[in-house]
């Protein structure tokens, strides 16, 4: 384990953590506010990537501009999602789940049929390599990390610093009470959907440039989001950050020591052990006895 490897892995941890959290935050938001298991999150992420692709590569719009446009477009999915897929089954866990499955199946299949070459990728958002002593890191990853971090700060401010954010928390903690308070639950939910879709779109575009696109690129997103939410403590936004760092660290360091899929198995094993000891994750809410 040389210095280069260590520093590289630490940078990698931060990078992965920011990406994972970016992905999981929207997912967790929808869960804690609407108690919805948002299985279509990965598909929206995938759509984000492909929309940005068709804007920047196919139509040849400037990539940064098309990133902004993508986010704008995908955010519009939010209210639609809430009105047609979630509201009809208000607080009905399994039906929202199944609607999500149906939708994502249809979208994924459509994407597959429209693709005749799996290898597609956005151009890198930044080129060149930053060299600092033993460490060298590509500007692309730096930029990705910075955008991610910035967005996270923004979202946290939105949730903890603004009236609407406080209303969100209220709805998440006690639905009946907040209804009595006259909070418009549907408006809050729609907003949450918008945020979730927006974050997914950003992540989709950034990672679509970093790792390439594919109709099934959303699957790992859903899994990572789930792991972060479960590990961080369901219903706790703060826990997700810790979980993100932990999982990012595991994913960045384990492959250096353990070869092959044993690494991923060990990673998941660690999470299972944590859960068996703390079924509610790091910051899980107190529930029952």
């Amino acid at each position, binding site marked *: 384990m040389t210095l*280069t490897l260590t520093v590289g892995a630490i940078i990698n941890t931060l*990078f992965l953590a920011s990406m994972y959290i970016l992905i999981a935050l929207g997912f967790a938001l929808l869960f804690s506010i609407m108690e919805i298991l948002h299985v279509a999150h990965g598909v929206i992420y995938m759509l984000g990537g492909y929309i940005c692709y068709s804007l920047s590569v196919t139509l040849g719009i400037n990539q940064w501009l098309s990133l902004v446009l993508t986010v704008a477009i995908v955010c519009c999915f939010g209210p639609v999602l809430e009105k047609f897929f979630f509201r009809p089954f208000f607080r009905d866990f399994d039906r929202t789940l199944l609607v999500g499955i149906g939708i994502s199946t249809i979208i994924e299949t459509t994407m597959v049929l429209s693709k005749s070459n*799996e*290898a597609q990728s956005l151009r890198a958002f930044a080129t060149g390599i930053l060299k600092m002593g033993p460490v*060298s890191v590509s500007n692309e990853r730096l930029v990705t990390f910075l955008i991610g971090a910035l967005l996270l700060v923004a979202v946290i401010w939105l949730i903890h610093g603004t009236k609407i954010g406080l209303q969100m928390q209220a709805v998440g903690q006690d639905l009946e009470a907040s209804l009595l308070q006259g909070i418009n639950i549907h408006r809050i939910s729609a907003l949450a959907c918008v945020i979730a879709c927006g974050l997914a779109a950003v992540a989709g575009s950034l990672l679509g440039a970093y790792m390439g696109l594919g109709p099934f690129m959303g699957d790992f997103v859903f899994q990572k989001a789930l792991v972060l939410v479960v590990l961080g403590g369901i219903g706790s936004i703060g826990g997700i950050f810790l979980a993100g760092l932990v999982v990012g660290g595991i994913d960045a360091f384990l492959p250096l020591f353990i070869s092959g*899929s044993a690494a*991923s198995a060990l990673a998941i094993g660690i999470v299972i052990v944590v859960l068996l000891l703390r079924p509610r994750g790091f910051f899980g809410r107190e529930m029952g006895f």
Partner: protein
Amino acid sequence: MQSKRRLHSFWFAVAVVAVAFFVFGSVASQAAEPKKIRVGLLVGLTGWFSVPGNIELAECRTAAEMVNDRGGITIKGGKYMIELVPEDMKSTNEGTTAAVNKLIYDDKVQFIVGPSAFWGPASAPLCEANKMINVLGYCANTPGELDKNTPHRILAEDGTMGHTYALIKFIKKNHPDVKSVAIVNADDGSIPYVKPLIAKALQENGISVAGDWVLFANEMVDFSPIASKLAALKADAIFHPNGIDRHVGPILKGLRELGDNRWYFYAGVSPCSNIKTLAGAGATKVVSLAPTPGAPGNPPQLEEFIKRYFARSKQGAALIIQNSSATYVLPQILQAAQSLDANDILKALPRMSNFETLWGPGHMGGERTYGIKHAVVHPLPSQYLDDKGVQKFGGWITDVEVP
């Protein structure tokens, strides 16, 4: 909670969709004609492998169409046409078994081509039990894929080992200075079985393996740890025996990011253009065994195949010539054996030499590698990106041998 009106419109929409599907279904199913050889085709049309699967379907249709347009094949004076019967193997082992059941018991096919990639073992038990000749388009050397216990299987296209042998020949010819390689590969089930074979092949050609193999989980999303592990290994070049562009691209990117500028030998058929798409500026000094349209020395049938395929498929479509090559080779084998009966074909198989493949003259080999002489050996093309990232044709590797 929907009102009655909404329900009505909703049901109307449903009815429309349903009708649409059944019309489509009747179009999609075709009827059989006399004097046809029914060839079942196992491709993953749904599931995670469905994008390559759909490409392969189009390719195989092209190959069959080519054979038929040339008047089919003549066996004992009788003319025969190829009729493809594709079935979806759902990109899973279970799907494969289900599809094989359908092909054998319901579609009543005479031969089976496929499945692709690592579902080979799944189709073996039923095919063997029913004495059904099964022509594979790829072989990753997992047990039960191709060995003494699968006498009814023919490997029509090089698998991991075929590609590796060919690529080593390429290295000896074009990069004699490469004396040691660091090996990277996806950690699929085949590693423990190919490892000794590849080690042997390299060492017979005076190339040593630096350190241990660098393996990564199939579902890995961020390859930088792998890249840094590779960069830490002292070797003249990187060797990637069996992979797909979605693996090669990111690894290459990571390596170049770390300032590692060694040659990357990739024993696969994904074109360099794909790798370039995925690795961006990092895509330099990488070799692949993909064909280059219009390159010198391309056999006419390959040129025709590529032309026909691009004519029928979308802009920027990818080429994976595996099951399609099998679809093309099967009729040639039948013609060479002059029989449609499994036993005759198997008897004739070892003696076959110099029959036509998409890649030029082919013969049978592979008794040392697979323990059974059922592997079609044929020339392979090569292409590479130079240190500026410009794509170049690497010449034909004509002396490929699968011992």
